[in-house]
């Protein structure tokens, strides 16, 4: 029997000035299937779904819905045709109640006034039907991220839902919440809804996917049925190279303990103790929200420090201001290069220069700057991180994520440090750049620096670290080294408290 194609794209292409974001992609979705879109950041997944969702218009090619070519003028257009998208950035207004959010733009009216009672009642009915335990009168901001996602999904059920697009839906969910979501997706499949599912978590695919389409650099690499492929093959399709080519082997030369934390406490993290050694890469793994980043942010003085002591090379830095900690030799690379890493409206050169100037390069005793010296040094750093010369005078906002990350890495070579904490060092970065950044990490560790890699990307932590800590629900659930460091073991410790493994 031939299943009907709900949506189909033919030669879908999207061009931005200077960039081909999507290059002639053919894609189709059948009723009652889960079709996974898989690819690196920047591969074109978001561009593809933004056009299906009506948030963007194609430069070329067409979208065919139930056999007829259509043009979406807006997201509302697409929703009217039954295509609903749950984006990674939720479209919820945090200050409104849950019910108000669900009915935003569809408010039930009583004469000229909004009928709040009917709104709450209907929201409650919808939650019951979907089996979501959420109070419709709660203020949206007070919900957990998982609950907010449920609200977002509930919003999809106003109209006649035929296609549901989920963008990284499990990125911030706990295991139990993921189970719930998958159960829900199965129900939808049974109703004949087609689901486009974007995810990086390759281990989920076996559970829910019917077919997988892999994108790379804006082009479709292929579509495979899930029964006919395996994880390694998918990764190779995604990256265009084998895993061994990406991760370097880092020599391990454990030296003295440089950084020591004892009972460090911060909101969301129960007392945690750890040691960081010179010449070693310490990996920190855990789900989003496990506290792995917050623990180190507290040690840096960027998050509130509620208790414990932190010792850096024998000096107590528990209550030192961030700038003193940095000057003492602990460098922290922010996971969010746009919000707290880079000055986007400045050229790469100026961004690099800032750390050089703060580190005292080319600065006289009286505080005057010799820009010639600074420029020469920043050029050296740019060479070292392999930032192409054409990008150095460009504003950071105009660079790709990978090049921005190179600038961010470059900043940490402006000031002298002994310990480098890399928080999500390759988030939103293409494979080629990743490999380059990993080599920088390797060089640091082999020079005898202490390196900490905090990452939600499990293969990254597994391959880079000599020793690793796993965090779950704000406490260190395991310390692993050598042969213990396998994906299965780590995953088990991810969900330490719920006791369920993936």
């Amino acid at each position, binding site marked *: 029997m031939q299943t009907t194609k709900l949506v189909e794209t033919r030669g879908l292409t999207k061009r931005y000035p200077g960039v081909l974001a999507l290059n002639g992609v053919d894609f189709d979705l059948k009723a009652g299937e889960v079709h996974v879109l898989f690819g690196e950041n920047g591969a074109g997944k978001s561009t593809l779904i933004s056009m299906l969702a009506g948030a963007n218009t194609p430069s070329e090619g067409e979208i065919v819905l139930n056999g007829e070519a259509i043009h979406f003028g807006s997201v509302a257009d697409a929703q009217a045709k039954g295509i609903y998208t749950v984006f990674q950035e939720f479209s919820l207004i945090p200050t409104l109640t849950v019910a108000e959010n669900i009915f935003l733009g569809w408010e039930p009216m009583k004469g000229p006034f909004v009928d709040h009672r009917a709104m709450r009642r209907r929201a409650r009915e919808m939650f019951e039907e979907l089996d979501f335990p959420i109070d419709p009168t709660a203020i949206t901001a007070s919900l957990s991220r998982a609950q907010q996602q449920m609200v977002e999904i509930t919003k999809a059920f106003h109209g006649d839902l035929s296609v549901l697009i989920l963008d990284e839906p499990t990125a911030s969910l706990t295991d139990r919440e993921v189970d719930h979501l998958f159960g829900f997706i199965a129900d939808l499949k049974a109703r004949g809804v087609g689901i486009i599912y974007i995810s990086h978590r390759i281990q989920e695919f076996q559970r829910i996917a019917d077919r997988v389409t892999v994108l790379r650099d804006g082009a479709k690499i292929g579509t495979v049925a899930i029964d006919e492929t395996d994880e390694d093959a998918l990764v190779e399709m995604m990256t265009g190279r084998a895993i061994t080519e990406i991760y370097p082997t880092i020599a391990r030369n454990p030296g003295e303990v440089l950084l020591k934390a004892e009972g460090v406490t911060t909101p969301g993290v129960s007392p945690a103790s750890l040691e960081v050694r010179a010449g070693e890469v310490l990996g920190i793994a855990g789900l989003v929200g496990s506290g792995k980043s917050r623990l180190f942010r507290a040690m840096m003085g960027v998050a509130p420090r509620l208790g414990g002591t932190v010792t850096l090379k024998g000096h107590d830095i528990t209550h030192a201001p961030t700038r003193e900690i940095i000057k003492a030799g602990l460098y922290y690379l922010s996971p969010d290069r746009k919000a707290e890493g880079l*000055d986007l*409206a400045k050229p790469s050169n100026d961004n690099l220069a800032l750390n050089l100037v*703060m*580190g005292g390069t080319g*600065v006289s005793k009286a505080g005057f*700057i010799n*820009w010639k010296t600074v420029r020469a040094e920043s050029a050296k750093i740019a060479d070292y991180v392999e930032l192409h010369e054409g990008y150095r005078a460009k504003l950071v906002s105009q660079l790709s994520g990978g090049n921005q990350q190179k600038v961010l890495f470059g900043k940490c070579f402006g000031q002298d440090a002994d310990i480098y904490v890399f928080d999500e060092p390759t988030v939103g970065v293409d494979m080629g750049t990743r490999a380059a950044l990993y080599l920088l990490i390797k060089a640091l560790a082999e020079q005898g620096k202490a390196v900490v890699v905090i990452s939600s990307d499990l293969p990254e932590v597994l391959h880079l670290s000599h020793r690793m800590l796993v965090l779950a629900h704000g406490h260190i659930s395991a310390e692993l080294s050598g042969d213990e460091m396998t994906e299965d073991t780590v995953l088990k410790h991810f969900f330490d408290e719920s006791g369920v493994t993936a």
Partner: protein
Amino acid sequence: MSEQSNQSGAGGPIKRLFVKVGVLPFFLLGALVIFTALSSKFLTGQNLVNVARQSVYLVLVSMGQMLVLISGGFDLSVGTAIALTSVVSASAMVFFAGVFPDAIWLAVMLGAFMGFGAALLVGLVNGIGVAYFDVSPFIMTLGVSSVGAGLALFLTGGVPVSGLPFAFGDTFGFGRLWGIPVPVLIALLCIVVMWVFMSRTRLGTQIYAVGGNIKAAHLSAINTKRTLMLAYMVCALIASLTGLLLTARVESGEANLGGTIALESIAACVIAGVSLRGGIGRVENVVLGAFFIVLVQNGMNLAQVSSYMQMVLLGVLLILAVIFDQLRYRIIMSGR
């Protein structure tokens, strides 16, 4: 990646100039053409020299305002700092001139220092509020400007302080050195110092960094709070210097000096390409921006535009400048 920016096509030379320096060259050209057409006296050497001399005060205040804008805030209390300086320094000079009738310059100096002190207090309070209590700069400096204006009026009972030492007004108001008016010389000196400070010192770099991305600055070992304090205090100090020069010019301490200067200085900065989001701005352009504002006022005077209409036009100019600033920012961030 916004849609609008994609539609703007290849950058012509006009657009490149706009992106590089902002709207100022276009406004300046427009003003020159319009006022030359309206009045034959406008484009004369004498008039332009006159404008340069009149613009000293706004140039100074605008440089202070620029510092605060680059740090990511803005200062509505510059006018108050001027008024407070005027009243305090004039009162002090009159008092000390009575105490040391034989050492007039000592009295002038003591008075000036007290004026600086009063303004520094204004800057200090602004800085503490913004840096340590996270009060929005708008509310903080608006509140402080009311407090300061109230104090200035209270101190004098609303009556100008007269009887200043003649030497003060003769030197700093009307004096010339090497044929150049003293206020102009002081302004030139400030411009040079400010230029060096912003482009050649670590502290200047820190102010740019804090305004560009305060979190990134924090993670680059910058004391962000101290940097913000510095910006507000230097701004108040420069306003105070302006207050002294104005006091010397009017030869009395007046609580109503600097009434419109907050708006004018912000307009001068924005027109000169200082970003309201912080992090971007150049001293030399701001000097030109302030000159432009005074030029427009002068042109309107020559063209016999009423002072009420001048207020209207100044407001319109400010809003236009902000709109162009937004456009420019959008072009910069989208790349092309």
